[in-house]
């Protein structure tokens, strides 16, 4: 029985990991939007980490985050890996706290926005550290925050939409 549970978990982690990587690859195809810093993306793979944080365990959510960072490192280089890891770890931590706590009265949109904001803050901080220019906070910060509201709105809504369907599959296991 325990073996069956374990292999189910491994298989699901594999599927979810592949989904997160496919979504982040899909995003990288979107051309740079004018007015936004290059690299600003909708963060669709955040849906996967948020789902993992809400329906699986904290460890599994962080596993997906680390997998994404390694994938970014292999395909786009060390800088991309640091950017992905710094943003990903901060936003996954936020997702774990917000989605797993029963006391927090936030809807999915609010949680999505906070996660996106955390992701962008983490990336901005590491961008400042890498380039050594702290003025980036004022140059890019405002835009990134507004952008995070929009992307968090989208990811939060999508998470709410896919959760019932995914929940059905989970129950059948």
């Amino acid at each position, binding site marked *: 029985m325990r073996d069956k549970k374990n292999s189910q978990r491994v298989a699901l982690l594999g599927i979810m990991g592949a989904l997160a990587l496919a979504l982040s690859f899909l995003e990288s195809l979107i051309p740079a939007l004018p007015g936004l810093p290059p*690299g600003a993306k909708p963060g669709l793979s955040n849906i996967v980490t948020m789902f993992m944080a809400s329906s699986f365990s904290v460890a599994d959510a962080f596993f997906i985050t680390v997998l994404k960072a390694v994938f970014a490192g292999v395909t786009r280089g060390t*800088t991309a890996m640091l950017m992905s890891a710094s943003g990903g770890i901060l936003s996954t931590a936020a997702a774990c706290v917000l989605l797993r706590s029963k006391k927090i009265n936030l*809807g999915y949109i*609010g949680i999505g926005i906070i996660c996106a*904001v955390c992701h962008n803050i983490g990336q901005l901080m590491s961008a400042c550290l890498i*380039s050594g220019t702290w003025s980036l906070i004022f*140059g890019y910060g405002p835009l990134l*925050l*507004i952008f995070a*509201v929009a992307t968090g709105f989208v990811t939060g809504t999508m998470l709410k939409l896919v959760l019932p369907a995914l929940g059905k599959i989970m129950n059948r296991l």
Partner: protein
Amino acid sequence: MKKLFMRADFIVILTVIILSILLFIPNLFNNSTLTAQIYVDGEVVEEINLQEVEKSYTLTPKNGTKITVEKGKICFSDAHCKDELCIKSGWLSKKGQTAACLPERVVVSIKGTDKTDMMTY
């Protein structure tokens, strides 16, 4: 099961927007001077504060190469080389922008290190 949207979410959105406005305020005061430097043969021959330019005028730093200066911007306006790449560079108005006329070794560059090219992430 959590709801899609709650009143607290509205507060989150407002907080983030207010935060971004607060972060934007320093940019309004950050109008540090826009200085153009003209290099001939690798040496600075002229420094112009572009914000203090009242009327547009033309400089001729080296035979036939003309540079037009206007309030807040500067460009190559005439050259006697074939490709005229310096003219095609157009108006320079932001920190870090550079146009160069290589045949005559004339370079126009706007001083400032603020502009950082962000790597893709």
